[in-house]
């Protein structure tokens, strides 16, 4: 999970035989838009930012995981299907989904036959094991997810494939033969197939591994391989001659060539997308405000747009370590006084921003329940009477002063801060805006508890998206107090509820998914009771389908267009 752009999981194959969709708003939400099996052409992606890394061990953006499937195959993969089906896992390198032991602590995968890297060498289970072992080294690969580091039963003092070069890590991963790989977990986990669809299980041939420089040329195991890679500007992919469609039911591999341009001005990107010059805004977070104001009033343009809900919450941390917010009534006053419609507008309104959130978990996360402890009035603009009541109870009948931090480079967070400043002022809560550099936001400022106290950062604009569609994945980083570090760096800055920590641990031990789901909702409710998180919006994004792109759909697994299925006319 991440506070930034959230990673997700991946898709499966076949674009299905859905009926051709009309070009209309949300046409790609539940159906495949413009389905086709025609091969050829160049698919053009553009990124207004840049990858953290193209190395499977070192990337943590949702779009990156989505896109990586074009050049890398993990053990499992999200099905390439619109809607909810796209959030289910299918085998990829593996013949079948993982076979758990009875206690869900040992997971065994068997690889398909005939798998090859781009250079023609066969892919074996050792390559997968090596990939996971190298990804263990967070010093070399600081960005990637750490689930496997924490879940597997690594030998004590194990430091990853480079620093513990010849160490035996069979306590964590075993490869009895070239096609079998066995994972040993420290604790039972029934959703392990979600973990193996993440990029760290994409195989890496040890002979070609160049460590931190591997990102410059990742050895492809998927249908496309790198042709040219100019980090900072873009790269291009061409067909991988050693990829065999027969081994890969999930990828239609339609285009002949894929071009990606990075670091393009976001507004230019939107314009080019609308004009048909490019096909996909790869980040999948939606258009800029200027483009939005062009799209929404124009039916023709609006018909090209989709508006998916993301498993992401934009929220504001309310810090109980800062006076007078240590008093729960003061925190509740904030909850009531906040104008949620302003919050929504700050993120771009109902289309680009999202739905007004009343609790943590977005409705699309399994187990999400409707929780609305602090109703903000009929118009959503806050319940000032209640707010004043709580202010009185807190001993600050005339309001109080505190600060609100946000990431300076993010206009939406700035707008959020402005909106909260304006709406809380209605009950006398005076906020001072404190922008901090994004790069240091959590490590030095809002995520550093002593700093928060010293600088009276009562409120901190924040956000969180789930790595995979699962309550634990969504909640843990946001509410587990044990991730808070005095030295800074955690994105949970306000939730320190012992109950919640306990509930999280208990939920992990529950093997039955059906029984786990209500536990998430309970955690959600418990956090809301403490009023340490002011939920803002459950994010939505306004995406634009590129012109001439075929097989366009949004899956719940990616929460953006599925890049594996796409082709060009």
């Amino acid at each position, binding site marked *: 999970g*991440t*506070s*930034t752009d959230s990673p997700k999981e991946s898709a499966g194959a076949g674009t299905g035989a859905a009926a051709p969709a009309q070009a209309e708003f949300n046409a790609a939400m539940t159906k495949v838009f413009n389905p086709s099996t025609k091969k050829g052409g160049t698919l053009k992606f553009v990124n207004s930012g*840049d990858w*953290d*890394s193209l190395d499977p061990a070192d990337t*943590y953006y949702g779009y990156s995981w989505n896109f990586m499937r074009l050049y890398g195959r993990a053990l499992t993969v999200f099905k390439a299907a619109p809607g909810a089906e796209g959030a289910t896992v299918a085998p990829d390198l593996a013949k079948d989904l993982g076979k758990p032991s009875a206690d869900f602590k040992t997971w065994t995968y068997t690889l398909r036959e005939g798998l090859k890297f781009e250079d023609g060498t066969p892919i074996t289970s050792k390559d997968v094991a090596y990939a996971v072992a*190298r990804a263990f*080294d*967070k*010093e*070399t*690969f*600081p*960005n*990637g*997810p*750490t689930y496997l580091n924490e879940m597997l039963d690594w030998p004590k003092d194990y430091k990853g494939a*480079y620093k513990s070069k010849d160490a035996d890590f069979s306590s964590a991963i075993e490869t009895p033969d070239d096609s079998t790989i066995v994972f040993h977990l420290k604790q039972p986990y029934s959703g392990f197939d979600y973990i193996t669809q993440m990029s760290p299980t994409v195989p890496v041939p040890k002979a070609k*591994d*160049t*460590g*931190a*420089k*591997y*990102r410059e040329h990742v050895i492809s195991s998927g249908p496309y391989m790198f042709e040219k890679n*100019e*980090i*900072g*500007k873009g790269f291009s992919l061409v067909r991988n001659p050693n990829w065999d469609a027969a081994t890969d039911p999930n990828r239609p591999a339609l285009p002949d060539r894929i071009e990606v341009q990075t*670091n*393009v*001005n976001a507004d*230019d*990107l939107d*314009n*080019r997308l609308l*004009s048909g010059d490019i096909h996909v805004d790869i980040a999948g977070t939606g258009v800029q405000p200027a483009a939005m104001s062009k799209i929404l009033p124009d039916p023709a343009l609006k018909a090209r747009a989709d508006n998916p809900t993301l498993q992401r919450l934009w929220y504001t941390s309310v810090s109980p370590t800062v006076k007078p917010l240590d008093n729960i009534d003061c925190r509740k006053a904030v909850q009531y006084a906040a104008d949620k419609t302003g919050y929504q507008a700050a993120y771009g309104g109902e289309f680009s921003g999202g739905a007004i959130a009343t609790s943590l978990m977005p409705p699309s996360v399994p187990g999400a329940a409707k929780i609305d402890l602090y109703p903000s009035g009929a118009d959503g603009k806050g319940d000032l009477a209640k707010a004043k009541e709580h202010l009185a109870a807190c001993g600050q009948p005339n309001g109080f002063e505190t600060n609100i931090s946000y990431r300076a*480079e993010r206009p939406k967070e700035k707008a959020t801060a402005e909106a909260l400043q304006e709406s809380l002022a209605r009950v006398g809560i005076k906020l001072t805006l404190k922008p901090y*550099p*994004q*790069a*240091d936001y*959590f*490590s*030095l400022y809002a995520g*550093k508890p002593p*700093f928060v106290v010293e600088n009276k950062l009562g409120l901190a604009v924040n956000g969180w998206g789930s790595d995979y569609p699962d309550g634990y994945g969504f909640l843990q*980083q946001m509410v587990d107090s044990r991730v808070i*570090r005095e*030295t*800074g*760096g955690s*994105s949970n800055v306000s939730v320190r509820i012992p109950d919640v920590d306990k509930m999280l641990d208990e939920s992990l031990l529950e093997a039955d998914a059906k029984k786990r789901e209500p536990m998430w909702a309970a955690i959600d409710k418990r956090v809301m009771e403490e009023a340490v998180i002011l939920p803002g919006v459950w994010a939505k994004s306004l995406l634009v389908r590129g012109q001439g792109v075929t097989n366009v759909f949004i899956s719940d697994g990616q929460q953006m267009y599925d890049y594996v299925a796409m082709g060009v006319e």
Partner: protein
Amino acid sequence: MVTYIIRRLIGAVIMLLVVSMATFAIFFLVPQLAGATPEGMASRYVGRTATAETAKLAAERLGFNDPLVVQYGRFVKGIVAGAEYDYGPGVEACPAPCLGYSFITRQPVFPDLMNRLPVTLSLAIGAAVIWVVMGVGIGVLSALRRGSVFDRAAMTVALAGVSLPIFFTGLVSLLVFSYGNPFSFAAQGGHYTTFLDSPGQWAYNLLLPWITLAFLFAATYARLTRAGMLETMNEDYIRTARAKGLRESTVVTKHGLRAALTPILTVFGLDFGLLIGGAVLTESAYSLPGLGKYAIDAIVNQDLPKVMGVTLLAALFVVVASLIVDLLYAVVDPRVRLA
């Protein structure tokens, strides 16, 4: 002459050292004064799920625990003698001049810079050609027709030109001439094609940035040239040239212009040097992937080695440009002796 150049180069090196120290101080000293620990600073570069342990390791790897002097010394040593970086499976040599490698993208900075340089160079050279031709041309005409309608109009426009912020002109020109609207004749921002790939496309993409940038500078140069020309045409030697019976056109070009343009050479050298070092605002306004944009992006990400790299390169350009200007000056003006 040679000793002069050597002396100037030594001066340049000292200057670059000062520049790099200042940059270094900004990035290390200031956060430290603000209370950042080495781990805290390292945690910028360890991803979002890093543990305290990782941050500590990273701090060690990046050498944040060493005293600032040592860190700085390492940086300088890298430039002079190259450095080695731990890439995981092995160490990789980064040959001199090694400006370090990015904390974030793990790319050596130097190749990055070389990669971005052509963009900025294209921008600067194209704009420079336009602004020198326009600015000097208009300035000379204005001076020769002092007080005429042309002069007044030109100077009014020029004054307006120097008063317009480039990020505003950039925005407006994009709005008016690009973004797919009816008047558009130029490419949108963010496009760059190398000259070798397609000269036509290269020029087309850069047209708007060139014009915008050139407008600003042409205005300044027109004013400078006019003032210089007016002053020169009052010199005694111009009177002498006329007294010899020279044609007025010869007087203006051979005697007047040459002398009037020499001081402008200096200004041009500095402007051009500074511009190559990063046309920050222009590149931001048009999202051109040049050094200026690179610098801004690096600053946003607090990616110190990149910032150091650009700053040094930029300063180097200024120094080199001013050295070249001074050498040229000595060629143009025989009175100048390089000593």
